[in-house]
């Protein structure tokens, strides 16, 4: 890798595809499979032309069977390959949960370290595309709860590429939760195969009045909210954990210690959500002594994602909601 990186604007989907292509170019063990990932190029167009570049042996369309897909990946990983699978919607990881939770996550441990499971499961999550209750969930907490899995949620174009490359390098099973709304967004990303290290949060903006911790599509909403808050004289630090597991607790603790207020924003429903874990972590940490206000969570409502667009929007935090919560937190405390 050279020191100078040639950065240009590409879309999030292109960044994922570029990472897949570069990983396949540099390592024969890397291959992809899933539903409609070949000729069709993926339900969201992510795998695109990869089948033409790498052939049908390395980009395989599979039967419509998510359990089979993940099971095959576990087997391939055990046999020394570096499989990457796409689950068409993260909701359908439910069909594959046995292989993810009982096999992929536990094999290394149960075999006393004798075998590794270096596989990557990519799946688009999130709402906002009018795909209704069974195609719109944010299920990161399910995976983050399972010892043995790593979980990443790329929020920027550069991270869509960098975190995926790091996930492919990683000797453990990594669940990469992409966001459907981000696929078409453009942003800068390096041309080189630059890794974004797992377990390292990004501070996207710094301020003094509060720290907003946000994941997935909420990162760009938090940044937009921070922009508006700045106009009101409230400055916010915005932290994007990027990796949920292992979580970069230190960065969160440090930034909250500095601002004394924490607003935790996620798209997933609040109850049992990942931000509840972050909240508890903060309360267990030295940051607690510096808090000037209760730790606030701003989350999706505790409802399935509705189909009607106006209700769908209402079900998850939007920019004005973040502005309002942040303002309240700062003005009232």
């Amino acid at each position: 890798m050279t020191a100078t990186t040639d950065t240009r604007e590409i879309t999030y989907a292109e960044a994922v595809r570029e990472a897949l292509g570069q990983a396949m170019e540099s390592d024969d063990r890397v291959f992809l499979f899933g539903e409609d990932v070949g000729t069709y190029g993926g339900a969201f167009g992510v795998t695109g032309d990869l089948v033409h570049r790498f052939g049908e042996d390395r980009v395989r369309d599979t039967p419509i069977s998510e359990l089979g897909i993940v099971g095959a990946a576990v087997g391939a990983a055990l046999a020394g390959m570096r499989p990457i699978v796409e689950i068409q919607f993260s909701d359908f990881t439910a069909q594959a949960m046995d292989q993810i939770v009982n096999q992929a996550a536990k094999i290394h441990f149960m075999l006393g370290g004798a075998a590794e499971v270096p596989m990557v499961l990519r799946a688009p999550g999130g709402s906002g595309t009018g795909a209704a209750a069974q195609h719109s969930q944010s299920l990161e907490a399910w995976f983050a709860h399972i010892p043995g899995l790593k979980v990443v949620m790329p929020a920027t174009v550069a991270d869509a590429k960098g975190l995926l490359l790091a996930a492919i390098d990683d000797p453990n099973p990594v669940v990469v939760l992409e966001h459907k709304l981000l696929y078409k967004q453009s942003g800068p990303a390096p041309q080189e195969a630059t890794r974004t290290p797992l377990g390292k949060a990004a501070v996207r903006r710094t301020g003094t009045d509060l720290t907003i911790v946000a994941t997935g599509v909420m990162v760009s909403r938090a940044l937009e909210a921070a922009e508006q808050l700045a106009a009101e004289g409230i400055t916010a630090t915005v932290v994007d954990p990027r990796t949920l597991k292992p979580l970069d607790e230190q960065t969160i603790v440090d930034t909250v210690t500095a601002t004394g207020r924490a607003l935790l924003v996620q798209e997933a429903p609040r109850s049992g959500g990942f931000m509840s874990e972050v909240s508890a972590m903060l309360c267990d940490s030295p940051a607690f002594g510096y808090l000037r206000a209760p730790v606030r969570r701003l989350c999706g409502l505790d409802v399935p994602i509705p189909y009607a667009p106006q209700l769908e929007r209402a079900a998850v935090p939007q920019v004005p909601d973040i502005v309002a919560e942040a303002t309240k937190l700062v003005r009232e405390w």
Partner: protein
Amino acid sequence: MSSPEQWTHPQPGDSSAATAAKPTPEQVIAGLRATSEGGADLVQLLTPEGERVDSPEFDRYVTDIDGARLRSLFRDMTLVRRFDREANALQRQGQLGIWVPLLGQEAAQIGAGRALRPMDMAFPSYREHGVAWCRNVSPQDLLGIFRCSDHSGWDPVAARFHPYTIVIGNQVLNAAGYAMGQRFDGHVGDDDGEATICFFGDGATSQGDVHEGFVWAAVYDAPLVFFCQNNQWAISEPTERQSRLPLYQRAQGYGFPGIRVDGNDVLACLAVTRWALDECRTGNGPMLIEAFTYRMDAHTTTDDPTRYRLSDELEAWKLKDPIERVRAYLSRNGLADNDFFEEIAAEADNFAAEIRDFCVNMPDPPPDRIFSEVYAEPSPVLEAQRAEYLSYLDGFVGAGER
């Protein structure tokens, strides 16, 4: 012609170069498609040209289908197709969130749907608008879902038509359970018995759910007709991505009969489904029907089939159109005249206009509907969230923004 029987493995001890044990890709495709040339396996009563073929086994199941009844089946298919095309257009014009076209599958769905008796139960996937029609679930109710205004708009118990299922294969397990219940409750065993029919696609047959549904239905002798519409595609994946064997032949491994019917032949679909349901209601279930048909349009309105299939294929299937062969039969045999066809065309146009009018005037759901129906009873957490949300909305009213 290759057939699975020819793929026999060599005897133990024979050469390990078991070339016969595995079909070539060409053999697989030939086997899967054998019936496109009208193979012996295919039940067909009406050819694509509209000629009636005798079937010693199945004619008896359609003896009541006289000119009037056949005209009625023609009307069903024509109206359902018109509804489908109108809904597709409404989606294109931004009036529906998505549409899942049934174009080309009218005969399979009307044939199967009209074979049902009032007390039979049906479990659809998401493309069964024709079956919905036969169950008296109104097109308007279907539109509510696809316009994002409503969830499942009908009472599944009253309509005896389960809500649409989008997660592939799930409904097969539910149907197995329902059919087991019909048996346990003593509703099976004679001509007045009940049966269940479950619809799913060729792609769904790869899901574990479908395998498990087959196993459960077989173990409990459930009165369940598995109705697989093999429309040749699962989004971009052809059937050979799901199976080596013609799908109906899978039934044998589970211990129940499987049969392949020309899914573009409404008469054959009606006859075969009536037979299968009768077998089930008298206690000989389950049964598998593979309706060999073709998805003539995109998977959904978000799909572009030109990315993965050739237009030649569509052109070939257009010659087997499910509606045209009935039209040809009716005309040729003097069972319908031009006036009839014009009448139906006019009815279809009016129907489409009604649907369009209904669709564009459908009210938006109330904003706090989001909190209703999550649980069977009110939930304190959700009621708090509802109150908070409504007061938030009131804030906008105060500010003159809503």
